[in-house]
């Protein structure tokens, strides 16, 4: 069990260097179980790189990562996902030639023991459809089940990606700018969805929409040039003079 004292996801001295350039430098992160934690900062601050390090898409140059007490610093990428640490991508990432329903099915196949089944027809996947449709309804994609995923408008692709991620019933969700490029109406939907999802899960979220961040987050970390600038609740962060200078004050990217 994870007590409220120890972090569910913990990073120590996380560092990533690209040919002499430090995209992330000596970063400590503690994300507590059940919380919504936001990671904010100007473009190029290193937020996506942090996600890539935490989900083992990139190797860290230095540092250590623990998830639910387990050291995952050198774990294979797909194994991290199987542990229940699942992400969405900043650039929406779907299987374009597959239908919306098939996208969800793919996510459901492995947990249901249907990944390696080569001797049966695809109708063996029909039993996943009930769950898949429920997930699609959750993100208002019920009417699009048979559309080609690549043909969806941007906002709906994002919604599909979130539904696909949720299909794995992750214990912890990493969302990279889930609301980017969405209209106001979709932002309200996704905010509501994340709120609902977060009731039973831990969420780490990169988001430029500060209204959504304010509404959802328990805790916020501000990143600038790969380093931690500040950390605290929304009100604490807003009061921080340094943050205002670096980020909130000037031309805030919303």
């Amino acid at each position, binding site marked *: 069990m994870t007590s409220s004292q120890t972090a569910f996801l913990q990073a120590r001295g996380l560092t990533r260097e690209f040919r002499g350039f430090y995209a992330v430098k000596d970063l400590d992160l503690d994300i507590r179980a059940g919380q919504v934690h936001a990671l904010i900062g100007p473009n190029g601050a290193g937020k996506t790189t942090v996600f890539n390090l935490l989900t083992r*898409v990139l190797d860290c140059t230095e540092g250590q990562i623990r998830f639910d007490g387990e050291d995952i610093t050198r774990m294979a990428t*797909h194994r991290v996902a199987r542990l229940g640490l699942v992400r969405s991508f900043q650039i929406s990432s*779907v*299987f374009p*030639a597959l239908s919306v329903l098939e996208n969800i099915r*793919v996510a459901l196949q492995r947990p249901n023991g249907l990944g390696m089944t080569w001797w049966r027809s695809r109708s063996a996947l029909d039993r996943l459809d009930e769950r898949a449709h429920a997930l699609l309804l959750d993100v208002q994609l019920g009417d699009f089940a048979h559309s080609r995923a690549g043909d969806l408008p941007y906002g709906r692709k994002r919604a599909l990606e979130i539904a696909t991620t949720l299909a794995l019933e992750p214990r912890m969700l990493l969302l990279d700018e889930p609301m980017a490029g969405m209209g106001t109406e979709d932002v309200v939907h996704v905010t509501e969805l994340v709120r609902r999802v977060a009731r039973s899960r831990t969420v780490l979220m990169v988001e430029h929409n500060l209204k959504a961040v304010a509404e959802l987050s328990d805790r916020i970390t501000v990143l600038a040039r790969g380093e931690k600038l500040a950390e605290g609740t929304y009100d604490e962060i807003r009061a921080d003079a340094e943050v205002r200078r670096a980020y909130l004050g000037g031309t805030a990217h919303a």
Partner: protein
Amino acid sequence: MLRSHVLPVLALLVLLCIAPLVFYPIFLIKLLCFALFAAAFHLLLGYVGLLSFGHAAFFGTGAYMCAQALARWNLAPELALLFAVAVSAALGAVIGFLAVRRQGIYFAMITLALGQMVYFIYLQAPFTGGEDGIRGITPGHFLGVVDLSNPLALYFTVLAVTTLAFALVWRIVQSPFGMILEAIRENEPRAISLGYNPTLYKLAAFTFSAALAGLAGGLKAMSFQIATLVDVTWQMSGEVVLMTLVGGIGTFLGPVVGAFIIGGLEQYLAQSALPAPVILGAAFILCVMLFRKGVAGTAKSLLQNRAPKRSTPDNPETQATNRIVK
């Protein structure tokens, strides 16, 4: 998906059943073996997006193992074929293990290199008979009843085995496993983030492909009663690439069409005074320029354009083609 294939497949089967009235059975057998070889290769290229340049290693291994089992161990033909499949699959697992982690051109290069290594092993190994090959094969009775010394019986046996093998390919690509292969080809990082290990899936597909290529080689050795180095050369690896590209990537029957066109052309050119490699090369260039989706792919989209269709801009066929062209 299934329905759109039923008619062409049935038509093809009927044609193949009456073809011996017009063509020599042994010529048709050659076409069938090439078609199966191309289908095995296409399982990788079309459905996983991996271009292997060393597939003759498996075709040749199938041929040598079948010949060895028939000529020296006097195994029944069905057992000799099974042996050929098993050894080819094992070799496929080893070569696949070394290759599937590489992408694009590096995958092609490593398969070419390993394929050449296999060639040199067979060139040196005493049992292959070097330049002479393994001769003196008597195919015997298939399943104890079908006398394979009768050309027609041999042809229909090969047709039956090939049809079963094609049904297996269809099952694999249309299975839940095939769905994940598609997903990996479409977006590998996303598949990994959903907990899939692409290496494992690619290795499984590679092994399947090697096993089927081995079956094709085994059938050829059994029918022609000889196994030689020709079947393991890099030219043979190149030929299967050629057949598949001419037929069309991403179309189930594409490899069959390609194998029939190239096999037929070769047969025709061998009897004429024309320079075969030049004509084949020109035919290939023409096909690639005129039909970007291959002959079968182009025919399919022509047919679909008349009927209401679904999507075009980046369907798997064009995507696969683009990947090769890039």
